[in-house]
């Protein structure tokens, strides 16, 4: 009986950690889109690629939340977090020395720009996955409890992130058209 309750607790904690990661990423993506549409900050190509890595991480998290019997979703999310780290570190190194044509794009939040925040987010995600495996051991859930609050929250967050992805697709179409992306304006609105 005690073993069953411990397994249930581990599964609930696991779901909670994954939900928090998804919530954090949804918040960051919403903030990035807020800066784009409300403040008129057009994202650079590397910023867009960072968004792609974040969306892919969300995809893995959503998959893991839906299918707790496999760790495939967590694997997808970890690969995406590494990709986010690689892109954001390179962009940070690109702009860390201000020179003509190269400087951080967009507003700084608490003194840090999007690229630097992305480095911190990627590291936080990887630490989160490591802690999840170290403490909980990657528990397998017997079957998803669809009626639980966490299950409803994860489903709602998944739908929200998918809508954000669709909006981003349309936004990229307007910004880049079928060619290169520029931060000078929206290609289809010229």
């Amino acid at each position: 009986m005690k073993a069953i309750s411990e397994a249930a607790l581990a599964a609930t904690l696991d779901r909670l950690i994954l939900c928090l990661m998804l919530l954090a990423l949804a918040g960051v993506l919403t903030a990035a889109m807020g800066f784009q549409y409300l403040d008129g900050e057009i994202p650079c190509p590397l910023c867009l690629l960072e968004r792609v890595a974040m969306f892919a991480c969300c995809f893995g998290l959503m998959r893991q939340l839906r299918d707790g019997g496999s760790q495939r979703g967590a694997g997808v999310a970890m690969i995406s977090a590494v990709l986010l780290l690689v892109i954001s570190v390179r962009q940070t190194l690109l702009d860390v020395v201000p020179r003509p044509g190269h400087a951080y794009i967009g507003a700084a939040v608490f003194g840090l720009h999007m690229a630097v925040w992305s480095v911190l987010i990627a590291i936080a995600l990887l630490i989160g996955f490591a802690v999840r495996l170290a403490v909980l051991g990657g528990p397998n859930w017997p079957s998803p409890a669809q009626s639980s609050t966490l299950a409803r929250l994860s489903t709602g967050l998944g739908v929200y992130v998918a809508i954000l992805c669709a909006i981003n697709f349309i936004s990229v179409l307007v910004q880049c058209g079928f060619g290169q992306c520029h931060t000078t304006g929206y290609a289809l609105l010229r």
Partner: protein
Amino acid sequence: MMLAVFAFLALAFLLDFLGRSGPALICLAASLVLTLWLFAWEIYSPEYGFRMPWLQVELEQRPLLAGGA
């Protein structure tokens, strides 16, 4: 190219919601491969290649301590 990246990504989410996990994963993989290719293209410079010559480091000249271990 960026449009193709986001198109595959959005398609992956759509297929995942429709319960087509296999094709969704393939679309996501296609999106990530295109992302890597576009990333390499974006950071490549005809002048510097993939190097970052604006990052310069030098060894600090420190006086040797007399009689140091």
